[in-house]
């Protein structure tokens, strides 16, 4: 298994859609074959269409607000000593998280395919909120599938979705979280694929959805590469790019331009959700060595039992609370290009507290997992090491959880 250079990672799959010969693919019911093939054809046309690219860039700049800023976390760095800590504040994007990139591109594709309805899944509610925003912007009717448990714990995002005119469909099956929302959304698409476009909220699902999402979030690292070069004159010798990983869309977007660099120069660190400290449940298939399985149309490392039943997961962060992970991250793990670890709920909370104490930054519980790793390793690193954390979501949506756990507003 080997990574190739100068080819985007999203395109390094074989003709069956597998990365590294075994991750990804399209394990879908027969009914979805045609809509998936149609979408695959349409996307490969659009991504080479200059007019479409111009449109994408226009909306990325004027609607999403690219580029989001790269800032040095001076106080936090001084407090910890060691490496310099920087943040790419992706949460500045319209809507407050990276999910807007994928949502906007899917809405544009939906329009291009002449479909009027768009459906999507959501965990933390960001993917749903952004899809509802994009749908409103482009005049599409929107339905969002969301686990009943997540609806309760991410109320602010639900309010936003409803305000944007989207219908939230609560999912009561299974664990009532993201995994069930994705299943229900796929079922809905099976029944309505002739009129409806489906947006998968992360770099997961059948091959084409991994590609579209990765293609969309890659904007983050295109910006970052320019910003690093401007800030440091050239790309520094020791960089660590730290990102949380649930499905893995923000991490891929944050890393895509840097995968060709040597690991010793630019290290890629993915931080999964370790769950509560003393719980056996987690959502960390990569760092806690889950077996390969098939979930939601793709082969990846999946939290599951010996029989192949998908395990319940547990994390304070709804956005990371998913038993599978993107096939491209499995590929990055097995080729050893990226290193994956996890942070517990408690570590993420502590990191959130520390970051907000020292900096004018309010990372949501998802990137707080990444900050936890940065805080852990920074003191041990040299002053010329540059750690950059993707602060990919804003904590406004976590208001209720933070209040409950920390007693603050």
């Amino acid at each position: 298994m080997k990574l190739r250079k100068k080819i985007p990672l999203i395109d390094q799959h074989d003709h069956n859609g597998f990365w590294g010969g075994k991750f990804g693919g399209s394990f879908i019911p027969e009914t979805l074959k045609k809509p998936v093939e149609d979408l695959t054809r349409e996307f490969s046309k659009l991504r080479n269409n200059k007019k479409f690219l111009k449109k994408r860039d226009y909306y990325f700049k004027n609607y999403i607000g690219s580029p989001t800023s790269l800032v040095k976390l001076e106080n936090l760095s001084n407090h910890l000593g060691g490496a310099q800590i920087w943040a790419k504040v992706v949460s500045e994007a319209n809507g407050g998280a990276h999910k807007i990139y994928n949502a906007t591109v899917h809405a544009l594709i939906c329009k291009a395919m002449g479909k009027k309805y768009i459906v999507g899944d959501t965990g933390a509610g960001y993917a749903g909120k952004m899809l509802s925003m994009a749908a409103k912007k482009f005049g599409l009717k929107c339905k969002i599938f969301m686990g009943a448990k997540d609806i309760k714990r991410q109320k602010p995002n639900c309010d936003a979705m409803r305000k944007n005119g989207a219908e939230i469909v609560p999912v009561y099956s299974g664990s009532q979280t993201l995994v069930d929302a994705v299943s229900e959304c796929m079922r809905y698409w099976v029944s309505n694929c002739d009129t409806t476009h489906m947006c998968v909220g992360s770099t997961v699902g059948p091959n084409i959805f991994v590609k579209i999402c990765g293609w969309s979030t890659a904007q983050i690292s295109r910006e970052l590469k320019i910003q690093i070069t401007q800030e440091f004159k050239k790309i520094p010798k020791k960089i660590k790019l730290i990102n949380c990983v649930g499905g893995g869309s923000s991490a891929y977007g944050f890393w895509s331009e840097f995968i060709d660099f040597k690991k010793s120069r630019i290290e890629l660190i993915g931080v999964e959700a370790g769950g509560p400290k003393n719980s056996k449940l987690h959502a960390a298939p990569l760092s806690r060595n889950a077996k390969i399985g098939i979930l939601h149309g793709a082969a990846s490392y999946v939290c599951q039992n010996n029989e192949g039943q998908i395990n319940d997961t547990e994390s304070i962060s709804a956005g990371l609370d998913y038993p599978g992970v993107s096939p491209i991250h499995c590929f990055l793990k097995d080729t050893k290009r990226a290193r994956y670890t996890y942070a517990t709920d408690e570590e993420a909370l502590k990191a959130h507290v520390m970051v907000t104490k020292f900096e004018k930054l309010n990372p949501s519980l998802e990137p707080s997992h990444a900050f936890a790793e940065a805080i852990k390793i920074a003191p041990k690193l040299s002053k010329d090491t540059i750690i950059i954390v993707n602060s990919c979501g804003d904590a406004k949506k976590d208001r209720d959880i933070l209040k409950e756990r920390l007693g603050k507003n």
Partner: protein
Amino acid sequence: MSSLINRAFSNAKNENRPALLTYTVAGDNTKKKSLEILKSISNYVDICELGFPHNTPIADGGQIQTSAYRAIKNGIKINDVFSIAKNFKKIKKNKPIILMGYYNMIYQYNENKFLEKCKKSKVDGLIVVDLPYPENKNFASKCKKKGINFIQLVSPTTSQIRLKKIIKDSHDMIYYISMLSTTGGKLKVSPKKILEKYNKIKKQNKSKNVVIGFGITEKTIKSLKKADGLVVGSAICKEISKSIEKRQNAVTNVTNIVKRLKNKIL
């Protein structure tokens, strides 16, 4: 020698009716009960489909999901599914049984081991919902080598070119999904339209047995009786749920509904 599945279809044809296929979930609501249901309904059914339940079923509607979750909750394991099939075949050796489920279960068990076990339990066929053509080519040929029917699915969205290839690669039976829906949806396409598409599939190769499934209930079954076979699943799972809820005997109730279904297509 002709497969049991083929023979079941010719028997039905001789009686001038479609074959009746039922789908129940192994272990719903217990191992023992599901075997009893299977034994009892098989007196009226031509081919029995037995689901091995998965907790992330992306193509199943509410009724079958409920049955699957119930069976998993009650501790059903893949090896129990095989033992149910095996025990069933001990007393109904000529009744074909088809296992149906999602690929991850087979993948975790190991394809070869799974097929070996199917063979030992005298399973006649397999339907894997999320392993479409051409991704299923390798597995389908492994099945053939073991003398197990791999049943291809065809849907209203299947293109003509694809249809030809799928039929060419199919074994004795093809499963036509009546409409764009998960299992157990309300029949939203007219029987006439369904049969038009069905005939197109039949025209490709008359020797293949084509069954229609999804949305088939006591109300709709009669209108589709021209098909080679008809599959009823969700309506049966629903009956099991109802019986449990009302604390009635599921075996009797399910047998009664199957008898009524059969009477409608005689």
